């Protein structure tokens, strides 16, 4: 029951966003220059932004971009973390130390500056979609060390369990043991790691966007829309400018309920 409610809420949000994009008469980039910062109307149900772009469509697109990007990035980061953690757990001690040192080194890097650097290395003509893909790829590339540590710990504990020793004694090779026995056991560890990464990456993209370094215009993103909140002149003009932050918090709470559920199960 506790799982179904947030899942249903999330599905409802995604379906609503997709339907909004499919059936809206406006493109997310379309500028209605006669309706700047318009309030709620038949034309624009939640008003428009500073360039006359339909806020409902942009929030819907941002939700899908954010969720898709963060989910893909979380999957990649969990995969990297799983490979790295397992490699360290089943390697000789000296190699494990080196691998763990590398992961610690990654953890200590100033990720924000790395993100900024990676973003600035993009060619200037990179399309908004390319900037979105790059942003989430960079997040994925930098987000794995903490997960890798957790997976390493779990794998090391399982490595010396009786059933693993028995498997070895029966002549199973390490790869077979990992594939057939270890991975199913570690699934309860991968899932919460993945679920923790999704909201973390959404928030990271929002923070980057708020710094002007995230997804390129005119593709909507949480970060770019949150920038509006930095201007009290805009806040005074329409209450709908709060819509992105409210929706973002709702999405994060839903995702958080998944990850805490996953963590409890694990």
């Amino acid at each position, binding site marked *: 029951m506790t799982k179904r409610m947030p899942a249903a809420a999330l599905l409802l949000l995604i379906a609503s966003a997709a339907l909004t994009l499919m059936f809206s008469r406006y493109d997310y980039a379309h500028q209605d220059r006669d309706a700047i910062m318009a309030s709620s109307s038949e034309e624009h149900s939640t008003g428009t932004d500073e360039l006359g772009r339909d806020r409902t469509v942009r929030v819907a697109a941002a939700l899908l971009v954010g969720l898709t990007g963060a989910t893909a990035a979380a999957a990649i980061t969990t995969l990297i973390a799983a490979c790295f953690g397992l490699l360290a757990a089943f390697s000789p001690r000296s190699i494990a130390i080196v691998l763990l040192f590398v992961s610690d080194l990654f953890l200590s890097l100033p990720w924000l500056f790395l993100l900024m650097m990676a973003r600035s290395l993009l060619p200037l*003509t990179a399309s908004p979609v390319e900037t979105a893909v790059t942003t989430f790829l960079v997040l994925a590339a930098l987000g794995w060390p903490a997960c890798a540590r957790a997976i390493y710990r779990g794998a090391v504990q399982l490595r010396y369990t009786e059933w693993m020793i028995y498997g070895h004694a029966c002549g199973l090779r390490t790869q077979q043991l990992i594939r057939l026995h270890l991975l199913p056991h570690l699934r309860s560890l991968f899932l919460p790691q993945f679920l923790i990464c999704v909201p973390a990456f959404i928030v990271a993209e929002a923070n980057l966007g708020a710094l002007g370094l995230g997804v390129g215009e005119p593709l909507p993103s949480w970060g770019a829309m949150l920038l509006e909140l930095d201007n009290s002149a805009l806040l*005074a003009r329409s209450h709908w400018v*709060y819509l992105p932050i409210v929706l973002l918090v709702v999405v994060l709470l839903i995702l*958080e309920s998944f990850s805490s559920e996953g963590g409890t199960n694990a």
Partner: protein
Amino acid sequence: MRNLYGRFLLLAGLALGAHAALSQAAPRLPGELAWVIRYDPKTFDPAKVDEQASEMVRYMTGGVLLRLNRQTQEPEPQLAESYNVSPQGTLIVFKLRQGLRFSDGAALTSADVAWSIRRVLAPATQAPVAEEFLSPAEVTVDTPDKLTIRVHLPKRVIGVGKLFDWIAIEPADRPSEGRVTSGPFTVAEYKRGQYVRLKRNPNYWRRDGAGVQLPYATGVRMDILNNREQEIALFLRGEYDLIDGLPADYFNLLTQKAPKSTRDLGASLNSEQLWFNQSSVAALPDFEKAWFLNRSFRVSVSQAIHRADLARIAYDGHATPAFGFISPANTIWHNNNLKYPHESTADAARMLEAAGFHRSGNQLYDGTGHPVKFSILTNAGNAARQKMAAMIQQDLAALGMQVTVVTLDFPALIERLMHKQDYEACLLGVSNAEPDPSSMMNMWLSSSPNHQWNPSEKTPATEWEAEIDKQMQLQASNPAQSTRKAAVDRVQQIVADQQPFIYLVYPNVLQAVSPQLRGVQPAILSPGLVWNIESIRRQEGSR
């Protein structure tokens, strides 16, 4: 879980930044005026000023021989009772007022004036104003008596009078970084990152019509604050007396809350413009260089941009569409007969077709089959520019051009523009501190590093650039106003024809003044609201 809530709090903090607790301004002393400067002054030495915060301090503290009246744009005698320029323009004679004193009580004589001028002209000082004298090393100053100063110039300098507005007279051999001055105020206290406090010069020479010694204000406190939200909140609380250079969206907010405080003076001297990289050393593919060098391409882009929309939306109506480099606010030099490409997307499309471009679906291609795609750089943190760039993106999409907008922090932007020439198009503004076109020479001469679309040309790359060079040199050297005006008009027309800079808007001068202030005479020239600081006073208890 806690971590995530921590992130929520971070986001909430961002979201509610506008309502965040405001820091307290420093306490105001009785009779003191207060406003904001954006950053710490780099220097208090009036001879070495090269940025706005230091310039503001120099203006408040430095006594000058002549002061440019910011409303009439004519130099007026200050410490000098009178001055005379010889017919050849190579000798200027100043006569000082009787009984002048520095703030410490010492007498101010021609020796102090000569020392101050020589110091500014000396290469070791590296005073930015020295270059305006064309050959500063050859300028000589002598003092026949205690009240007379003669400045000999090797050759005529057009508009030489205004140069003395930038030379603060200091005690000879006792430079004090604003502590001992001949201007209305002296530097009393400076706290890095917090404020600069000036106090009244008790020996200031000037009196009002009733014989009351000026300045009226007992002092000035300039808080160092680079946060518009705080500045406006503190202005509304009465902690600050004025705001110069308000962004348009904040102007409207302030107008709603304090309608009697705000003023829109109309178009400023500043412009916002878009240009393409035409540098021969730019690391761009040849086909892209060919677009940017093509006049038809530039004119088509110019024609497709809806400037009225830019002014209305990006500046909330507080800007004026721009078609040339001299704003209509500059009534003396603006070319009223300027012919510029009219706004028409259809005509722009036809011009591109005639130039060999063709369209397939929503994409424009050049004659060699390359899709027309380019990026527009602008600086992060300037909402109006980012909005303009997004609007231009849509305007040019109507021609089939695919434009990406890239915002970079200022140092990264300047690195690409000035050093690497690594960009395709750029959207930035130009601030013109004074109306005379001679001050814009560094932008128009083809040999200049600030000739943005193609910097530091060894020889002019095109005939029209050679013509601009010639006309700008002519206006800078010819004493006849009519000849100068004709030359500047010609340059404006060439620029309108060739569109090396595609002018977009002239942002309006937006100001806010406390109803408690008396004697403010707003001007579009810097320092805008406080150019007549001696005559401004705060009337307590009349909000």
